[in-house]
């Protein structure tokens, strides 16, 4: 069994490595995006103030200030939002609850300084100042897990799902079906081959761009690698569900696009889902990419350990198991 899996793994990996155009694209796209976004957002940024508010329904004249984006957070999210103030991702946090009327700003932030002055001159209830310190998180630090995650998603879904459909349509699967190779062995080899390739490619891209961009990394690289491996495995398993029976490349392409585009928009690749419609936030939880990016950002930006990202890891394990069972049980070798 191991011999057959290894042979299939090796043959598929050779095929991928010799397909220079596809291999090149797997490197070029994420590198171009990382450097492109770093360049675009390398200036001082837009003069927009972003303020998180607990109990926004409370009346306070400051909330009517123009050119400030106010968004509501729940009392449970105060700690997490304070950390964002520390990273300059949010300029100010207001807690307008009667018993604890306070505000937080980052003492190193120019935006925080100006917002504090505006708050003091707005009138209304006096709020207790709280100070936070911390270096600014650049947009590129926040977005790099998103770009690599997006590349991972496309590579896993199209690189496995689309290829299996092509194999089925061309009759290659039918030929393999005439050998002692079992469906499980074949699928395991496809998973292992793609997993190895995306982990190596993503690691090279991350390491290479990090040499120039010096991304913020508060947590463990090993934990990040674990998220990468588990995330890639889950996305590959999802691709097996699409590829299990389809024999038309056009249909497979349509189905894969139907999965990837909502995931790209709703998983927080380019922007945070905070402050968006609660229904959309709930829908985003159905996407494996949401949990991959959430865990990766928690490790990189907040220094989260395994216990902190336990929920995301468990969700990914559950999704991978579900997709794998469906994909394997419904797999067909031929177009019949």
């Amino acid at each position, binding site marked *: 069994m191991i011999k*057959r899996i290894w042979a*299939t793994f090796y*043959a*598929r990996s*050779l*095929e991928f490595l*010799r397909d220079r155009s596809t291999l090149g694209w797997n490197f070029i796209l994420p590198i171009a995006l990382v450097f492109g976004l770093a360049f675009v957002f390398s200036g001082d940024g837009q003069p927009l103030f972003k303020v998180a508010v607990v109990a926004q329904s409370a009346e306070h004249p400051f909330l009517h200030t123009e050119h400030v984006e106010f968004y509501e957070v729940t009392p449970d999210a105060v700690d997490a939002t304070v950390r964002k103030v520390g990273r300059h991702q949010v300029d100010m946090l207001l807690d307008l609850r009667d018993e604890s009327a306070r505000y937080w700003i980052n003492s190193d932030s120019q935006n925080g300084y100006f917002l504090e002055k505006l708050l003091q001159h707005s009138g209304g209830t006096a709020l207790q100042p709280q100070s936070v310190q911390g270096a600014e998180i650049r947009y590129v630090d926040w977005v790099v897990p998103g770009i690599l995650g997006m590349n991972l998603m496309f590579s896993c879904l199209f690189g496995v799902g689309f290829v299996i459909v092509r194999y089925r349509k061309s009759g290659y699967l039918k*030929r393999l079906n005439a050998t*002692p190779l079992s469906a499980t062995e074949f699928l395991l080899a496809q998973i292992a081959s793609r997993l190895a390739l995306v982990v190596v490619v993503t690691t090279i891209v991350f390491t290479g761009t990090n040499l120039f961009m010096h991304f913020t990394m508060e947590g463990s690289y090993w934990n990040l690698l674990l998220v990468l491996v588990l995330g890639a495995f889950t996305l590959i398993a999802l691709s097996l569900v699409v590829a299990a029976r389809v024999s038309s490349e056009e249909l497979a392409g349509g189905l894969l696009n139907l999965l990837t585009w909502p995931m790209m928009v709703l998983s927080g690749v380019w922007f945070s889902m905070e402050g968006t419609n609660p229904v959309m936030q709930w829908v985003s939880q159905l996407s494996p990419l949401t949990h991959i990016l959430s865990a990766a950002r928690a490790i990189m930006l907040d220094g989260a350990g395994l216990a902190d990202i336990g929920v995301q890891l468990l969700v990914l394990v559950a999704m991978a198991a579900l997709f794998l069972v469906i994909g394997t049980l419904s797999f067909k070798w031929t177009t*019949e």
Partner: protein
Amino acid sequence: MTQAILEVRDLHKHYPGVNAVNGIDFAVRPGICFGLLGPNGAGKTTTIEMLEGITKPTAGEIRYKGEIQGARFRQEAGIQFQSTALQDFLTVRENLKFFSSLYPHSLPLDELVAICRLEDYLDRDASKLSGGQRQRMLLALALVNDPDVVFLDEPTTGLDPQARLNFWELVNKIKARHKTVLLTTHYMEEAYNLCDEIVIMDHGKIIAHGSPDTLLATHFQDVIIELPERDFPEAAKIIPHRYLDKVTGTVEIITQDVNATLGLLIHHGASLAGLQVRPRTLEDLFLALTGKELRA
């Protein structure tokens, strides 16, 4: 009596609205070349795919060496499909090594390469082979596990005459190694030259089964005289005949008594310069049984 290597009992395959195979029975003796012939839509591809274990029968059973077809069959059978795609970017050598790795027992690569004469193409990208070279490589893939039974599904379709003759030579080499060969083909000449036994299928049923010579002897006691239309005078048209080819103008006379027919032709002033007498062929048998031209 030698046990059949493959036995087919009351085999059926139904698709929605189509009965592709309608209860067929036959047995294949080990070491022979067994041909499966039939017009398009006769059910031969469905039958061979069920024999190969690719398609599940609706009813009936297939036994390999007396056992219900299973894991042992997959290890001991070699299959060359009519059209087989392979992975891109792999050389002939890499394809052979890959398929060898899928079996518990395989032929040494050198031996396989020698049988199929692939020495000059081993390190060539498999997608860049010519038609004949590709068919030889696909045959090599079918032989990697040193199979006891080899399925060849229309292996010479699309090949030029020289490549086809070369392929026949390879099939004869396989037969010489006492392997059982199951062959489907559109070429009657190929079936006659390679097969020890044939079945002809039509409408999902077997309509003839036996050795090519026995079948010809059973169905025909006559021969065919062919002569150009220009050599066939008006007076000779009292002899029963038909126009075989309107374009080239060939006339065909079927007769059980060659001497008497030739006498009549001479008597009516026919020229014998372009005349040919030929025995019945499998193509004639096929036309007689199915009423269809095989290549249509």
